């Protein structure tokens, strides 16, 4: 067998107002159970999905911050946020939600903030890219 196929998800739409990001999360959780090398990159309005402390109660929808908090448990640990998209939206690293905790130190793990050029380099290595 060849090595694991690299598959990247991109999240570019805002988290609420449509179902794209929520249903896209369901795809990631399923796909993580398969034999593939999964990464997720949040960019454009997608970075807003990573804001900590979202309250969707008034929207009458379940929300998914709790599920994002378990991404590392689902073995999705390559989670990235585009630095420029965050800056454009007034977000800093302190705004990012937690996606799991380090097994040894129990330190919270947050998405890694990277530059667009790094994202481009990662994209070039992917077998396939799924925009969700």
């Amino acid at each position: 067998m060849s090595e694991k196929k690299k598959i990247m998800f991109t999240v570019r739409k805002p988290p609420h107002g449509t179902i794209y990001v929520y249903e896209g999360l369901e795809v990631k959780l399923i796909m993580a159970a398969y034999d593939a090398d999964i990464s997720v990159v949040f960019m454009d309005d997608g970075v807003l999905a990573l804001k900590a402390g979202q309250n969707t109660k008034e929207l009458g929808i379940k929300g998914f911050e709790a599920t994002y908090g378990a991404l590392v448990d689902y073995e999705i640990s390559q989670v990235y946020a585009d630095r420029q998209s965050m800056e454009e939206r007034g977000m800093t690293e302190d705004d990012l939600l937690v996606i799991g905790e380090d097994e040894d130190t129990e330190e919270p793990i947050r998405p890694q903030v990277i530059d667009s050029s790094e994202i481009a380099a990662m994209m070039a290595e992917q077998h396939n890219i799924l925009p969700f």
Partner: protein
Amino acid sequence: MDWNGRGRTGVQGMKLAVVVYEGPYNHEASDSAYNFVQAALAKGHEIRGIFFYHDGVYNVTKLMEPPQDDRHIANRWSEIGAKGVDIVVCIAAAKRRGIKDEVLVSNVRISGLGQLTMMAIEADRVVTFGD
């Protein structure tokens, strides 16, 4: 031709997967996907599979009855399926939207996201049509 240094040889005989996110008529996505699939097949490419997700699950219900002078989107997909192309409707997205096996046109099946996963792993390219 070597695409993006990924060691792929040429554009002949690629294995493609197609994903459709939007419902019929309201968005152009389903039409564009259909035209893409037709063109790819005509060029001799293989369609590894077509996957309907989000509102895309509405594209293959036999309950649709468009005006006679308009294209019948569900029947068109069924014709693609009749050529042996695997067309899959996501069961999770379908259940949310009231789409069940019994309302699907023929040559289309309902299954899980694992099918999309296998398409993403096995196809040379996944091409997504959405908003």
